[in-house]
């Protein structure tokens, strides 16, 4: 089940370098602190929940989500490059894990 409130937004962002009309695909990289690493942010959120009247959440972890608009085909090669980018740059693998996936 998925509830989506997001509107698409590809057209007029300042940094866009793709000419209009060229198809772009979205790849999402999720970066989360490794499970054994302290996540003070997630903890603070979790502690606040009961006060706000939300019960029944056993744990909260907070991480980062990167949405990448990729020019050209998102093939094996492209994904491998993004994988490498995530590993060397988007995530700090000393303390973080990441996943890469094509957004459907």
């Amino acid at each position, binding site marked *: 089940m998925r509830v989506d409130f997001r509107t698409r937004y590809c057209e007029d962002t300042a940094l866009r370098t793709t000419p209009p009309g060229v198809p772009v695909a979205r790849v999402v990289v999720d970066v989360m602190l490794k499970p054994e690493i302290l996540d003070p942010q997630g903890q*603070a959120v979790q502690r606040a929940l009961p006060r706000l009247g939300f019960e029944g959440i056993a744990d909260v972890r907070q991480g980062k989500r990167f949405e990448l608009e990729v020019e050209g085909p998102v093939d094996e090669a492209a994904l491998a490059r993004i994988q490498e980018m995530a590993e060397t740059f988007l995530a700090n693998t000393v303390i973080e894990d990441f996943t890469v996936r094509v957004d459907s």
Partner: protein
Amino acid sequence: MTSRIGVITFPGTLDDRDTQRAVRVAGAEAVPLWHRDKDLKQVDAVVLPGGFSYGDYLRAGAISRFSPVMETVIEQAKAGMPVLGICNGFQVLTESHLLPGGMLRNNHLHFICRDQKLRVENADTAWTTDYTAGQEISVPLKNIDGRYVADERTLDMLEAEGRVAFRYLDGNPNGSLRDIAGITNEAGNVVGLMPHPEHAVEPLIGTGRTDGLGFFTSILKKLVNA
């Protein structure tokens, strides 16, 4: 009897003691208020000081906004009680929707601490009558989430209604839209700004200027004359 100005302490508030000092320097009585207490102890006005309440985790001001004391503050502010939010306090006020818009990470992504020049655009709010409209003042600025944003319609409305209370001069320090450093609500009793007037009330300390004292003398006059 002098006026009583409440200063709220949330977990992670940093500038509560400085704000209390500024209130005293201006000649009012500073009343410490605790986030878990709904009771405002019959204060005449409230200041939400700067800091990193709840570590600024989630979003600056987001968790504090749900504290018991804020229930009363929101209620009283709507009824006209003067409320000043400084830095993190401003963030709590936008999160509480007492002031429109929101605050995001600075456009350069760094914490910035500097002496900041401002123009007082609105000298009619509860907290600014001791300034004159157009007056230029310098007070310390220090934050990482200081970029004020709102949609165009809101910005136009703020401009049209004279609710942009302070604007950055000599360079926008964080990418705030329309150089906005602080705003007021429609009634002029609720004011929020990112720079720190409470750090500019003594000649020797900080930047060595007292340009911020006017916030505290303004409110004192208003309360005394009320």
